């Protein structure tokens, strides 16, 4: 059974000329105990998808099921099975860390002693013991995010939604949070996370769904997506522009492929079929032709390349708050 099953999901905000198709027949299936990343730029529909799955928003078309419960038909059942941590640290800043967790525990239906015990466990797990009895408003951004995530885990959810969990965090806090998330996943939680950071998807997810304009435009493991774009590439920057022609012939002989030339950067790019063997061969050919090399290397396609190849535009990690700016409209 899939933990999450989304079929033909559609959602439009507003009407007439101003309407925005946030989701356009989105399909997605997430097997139990796996991590799937929804990767896409701002406004791609990531947050809308999570909000529908977390029962906060009704879809216009299609269906979304969590552990075989329809989110629109059985929201109460779904709410008992999920944990949600959003783009903002949704914690009560006037309460201490411990009080926040106790409150979420109680609201998830735990008895008071149980909630207290669970809070202590989570504070320990998330390295918040020292700050546990300080009001959360004194916490750093990273601590607030950890507390927020701990709140989502109070009732041992089977499915966890993390909406841009590390947006706005400094690199150190981001790495710490990744560690915590990986730990949870090892416990068997099914995780759906959204991110606009390609490296984040790469670091955490078993499988990645690239979405753009409310549709899944590609999916697979990080390696599969990269190989879709093509194998390793060899890049050479030569010293003298005048030698570009000779260099092209040399590289073509070695790599047995078409060579692209960027004159301004004095750069030649080709496919490296045999990986490092090709690289060695290219160096030999260039050396034999007496062509000076400024830089040379093998280049595995990054998810940036994947995104560029798939969408024709570069993923822009703009301000996080702008993603699905419809959030506010919906809330009002």
């Amino acid at each position, binding site marked *: 059974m899939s933990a999450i099953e989304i079929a033909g999901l559609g959602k439009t905000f507003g009407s007439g000329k101003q309407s925005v198709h946030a989701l356009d027949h989105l399909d997605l299936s997430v097997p139990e*105990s796996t991590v799937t990343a929804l990767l896409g730029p701002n406004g791609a529909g990531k947050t809308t998808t999570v909000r529908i799955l*977390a*029962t*906060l*928003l*009704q879809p216009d078309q299609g269906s979304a099921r969590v552990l075989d419960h329809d989110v629109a038909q059985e929201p*109460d059942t779904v*709410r*008992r*099975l*999920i944990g*949600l941590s*959003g*783009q*903002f*640290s*949704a*914690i*009560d*800043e*006037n*309460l201490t860390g411990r*009080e926040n967790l106790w*409150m*979420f525990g*109680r*609201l*998830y*239906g*735990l008895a008071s002693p149980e909630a207290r015990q669970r809070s202590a466990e989570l504070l320990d797990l998330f390295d918040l013991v020292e700050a546990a009895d300080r*009001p959360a408003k004194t916490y750093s951004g990273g601590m607030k995010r950890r507390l927020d995530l701990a*709140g989502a885990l109070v*009732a*041992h959810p*089977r499915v966890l939604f993390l909406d841009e969990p590390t947006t706005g965090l400094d690199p150190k806090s981001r790495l710490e949070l990744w560690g915590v998330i990986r730990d949870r996943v090892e*416990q*068997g*939680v099914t995780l759906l996370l959204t991110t606009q950071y390609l490296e984040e998807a790469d670091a955490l997810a078993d499988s990645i769904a690239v979405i753009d304009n409310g549709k899944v435009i590609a999916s697979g493991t990080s390696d599969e997506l990269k190989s879709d774009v093509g194998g390793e590439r060899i890049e050479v920057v030569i010293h003298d522009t005048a030698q570009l022609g000779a260099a092209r012939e040399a590289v073509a002989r070695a790599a047995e492929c078409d060579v692209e030339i960027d004159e301004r950067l004095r750069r030649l790019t080709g496919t490296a079929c045999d990986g490092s063997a090709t690289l060695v061969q290219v160096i030999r050919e260039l050396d034999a032709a007496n062509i000076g090399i400024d830089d040379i290397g093998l280049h595995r396609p990054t998810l940036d390349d994947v995104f560029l190849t798939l969408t024709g535009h570069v993923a822009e990690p703009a301000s996080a708050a702008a993603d699905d700016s419809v959030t*506010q409209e*919906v*809330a*009002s």
Partner: protein
Amino acid sequence: MTTAESTGVGRAHPVTDSLVLVWRNLKRLPRQPDMVVYGTIQPIMFVVLFAYVFGGSISVGGTNDASTYREFLMGGIFAQTMAFSVASSSVGLADDMSKGLIERFRSLPIARGSVITGRVVGDLTFNAFVLLVMVGCGFAVGWRIRGSLWEAALAFLILLGFTFAMLWIGALIGLSVRSVEVASSAGLIWLFPLTFISSCFVDPAYMPGWMQPIAEWNPISAVALAVRDLFGNPVGDTGDGFPSDHPVLLSILYVVAITAVFSWLAVRKYQRTTAR
């Protein structure tokens, strides 16, 4: 590993959920002493302003006696202060909205009305404290309870009931606006004309003829008159008609009607926002 499989989460318990959220709303008070100070300073200011600045030139029931006016004034100040409690729930809920807490609460398996109920009951407790401060303030300017204990108890009950009703209006406002700033002005702006075109501070007998019925039927007037009546304080020239003959009954009807309509609207607003 049982952690991931356990679903030790029971059904929603409206009372427990609401109480946990009341606890949350009260817990923050000692941590925001500035809020408590400003919450009580405004009504005290009104007492001082009207008792000593305007009081001398306002006549009540045909007399210009300053001490009569001060006793008359307190019933109005109580009603006004409790009406202004609207701002506490409107600002509180707008703040929770802007911080993403309402959204978070919505994703939890809790009873629908519990978030707003928790807010309203928490604010009611805070405003009961404000009322206590006002009573002390009243004693300081010469106001006294001259009726029976039972009547006084009923008067306090009406004031708290009125606060409860007004807090639901505040809840609807808080859930409808987009920012905390708007919530605080939208929560209060309409209350200024409402409290001044009432018997809170002046005797409606001195208002223009067309305005008198508005002032008499105004819920705030009804509450002010009811508590003046019950505390045995001067009531001014009330004239006759239903509002002046049955202020206690009218106040209770207003409290019930406002609570019924606005709690329904506020919970519906909360659900709508959920469902869209």
